């Protein structure tokens, strides 16, 4: 299926392409296919291509393209794109320690939701989440799929510092803080792995479209994995689920 897309100028050298304003996996896939189709064609003068929930940002070199001519070229590409484009998808198993040492908001959520801590951990870790895109902070994954029993409003006053690796719930979303930063989400655990590596050619292991699941680990396992990560020898579990 194709969507009715809107093409808008954004700044002096970008086009924002908008899909219907819905968070939906078939829209994500359509965006990623369109993106891949542009990448594959290796169109000169396109500097950057980024996808989010329902939009694709095309940054172009204005020495190479006028807005209108680029628009025509993109529209043509969208008509032609479709089933010949393959998106490969990987599923990543992320270790998370839900121990009290990290899960500073778990008691509060348990009280407010009338759910045992064990049920919260189970609901959070048995879901397979979709990575919609990476944004906000370096390495921050926007994940879709949080169980609706776990929706918890963001804190009215954000904490000044949230630890690196904090696994948290904010409204209808869940995510992991890739680095220490201020934050208003409710913290239910911590992952010992790195979500952003500035020195690497692939700074983030997951890409838009990939799947994520959280695997509960004990505090002892957490310390072990952390040591392996710091030594640079930890291998994150993953499998190709669509090639």
């Amino acid at each position, binding site marked *: 299926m194709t969507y009715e897309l809107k093409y808008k100028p954004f700044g002096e050298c970008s086009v924002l392409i908008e899909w219907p*304003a819905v968070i939906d996996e078939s829209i994500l896939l359509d965006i990623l296919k369109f993106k891949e189709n542009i990448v594959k064609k290796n169109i000169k003068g396109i500097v950057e291509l980024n996808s*989010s929930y329902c*939009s694709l940002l095309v940054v172009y070199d204005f020495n190479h393209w006028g807005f209108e001519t680029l628009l025509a070229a993109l529209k043509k590409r969208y008509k032609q794109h479709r089933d010949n484009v393959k998106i490969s998808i990987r599923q990543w198993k992320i270790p998370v320690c839900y121990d009290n040492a990290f899960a500073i908001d778990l008691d509060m959520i348990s009280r407010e939701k009338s759910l045992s801590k064990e049920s919260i951990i189970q609901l959070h870790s048995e879901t397979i989440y979709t990575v919609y895109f990476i944004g906000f902070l370096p390495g921050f994954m926007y994940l879709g799929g949080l169980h609706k029993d776990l929706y918890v409003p963001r804190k009215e006053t954000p904490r000044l510092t949230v630890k690196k690796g904090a696994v948290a719930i904010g409204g209808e979303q869940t995510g992991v803080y890739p680095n220490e930063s201020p934050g208003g989400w409710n913290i239910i655990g911590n992952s010992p792995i790195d979500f952003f590596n500035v020195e690497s050619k692939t700074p983030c292991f997951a890409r838009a479209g990939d799947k994520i699941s959280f695997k509960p680990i004990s505090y002892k396992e957490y310390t072990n994995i952390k040591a392996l990560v710091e030594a640079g020898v930890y291998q994150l579990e993953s499998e190709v689920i669509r090639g």
Partner: protein
Amino acid sequence: MYTTIQDLGRHGYQEFGVPYSGAMDMYSAKVANALLGNEVHEAVMEITMSGPTLEFHCDTCICISGAQMSPMLNTLDIGMNRPVRVKRGDVLSFGKLSTGFRSYLALLGGFKTDMFMESRSMYQGITAQRVLLKHDELPTESVSKDFIERHATIKVKNTHFTSSYLEVFKGVEFDKLSARQQKVLFTTAFSISKENNRMAYQLAEPLKNSLEPIITSFVLPGTVQLTPSGTLIILMRDCQTTGGYPRVLQLKESSINILSQKFTGHMIRFKLVE
């Protein structure tokens, strides 16, 4: 003191959530580099509001552009927007800020601090350092003996510092504003709140707002966001890559430069260009 190393910024890493960064006032940074015959991408020192005292460990040539902070080499006024020869042991200092907010110090061949993701622009979590600190030593290339001193000068337009008009395009969600809100945007003199930094400038006067947040989408330096409480936020070079507030206006690149030279209490007006 808030002094950093900046260049043209990090491009091509937005898909990992990495901000563009780069000199807030690209225009002044480019002028400083150009007067030394440097490549446009060489890193410069961005000096905000008040300047550091710097001692040179080698002979080189410098040029200062942007905000006027009365730079002195040892005890001599050296002026702005012209190359100045410096010798090992010379001390550069800055005086009182009189025009603008950010000054740019370029050095022959540029500052050679470590590159991360193809840029030297300092940003927390990307570069080893977020800002420059007392006693830091900064690497540069030594200047060859046969370097020919340039005598280029340039007269920078004063309007770069005095103009209160920011030229803008309609933002992605502009059409969702009511006719009244649109009118208010273009007829109000807004003042810059104390919340102004490399990430964003907030405006003190709210715009009555009833727009719903949007599904998180892209923002750029120069994007003007409208929060549910009616605060207008102008995103700057270190802004995050995505956001959920409606994007009502988009500053022209040249207006981002102009705004970078303003601070708390300064007035601005938006002027729509097509």
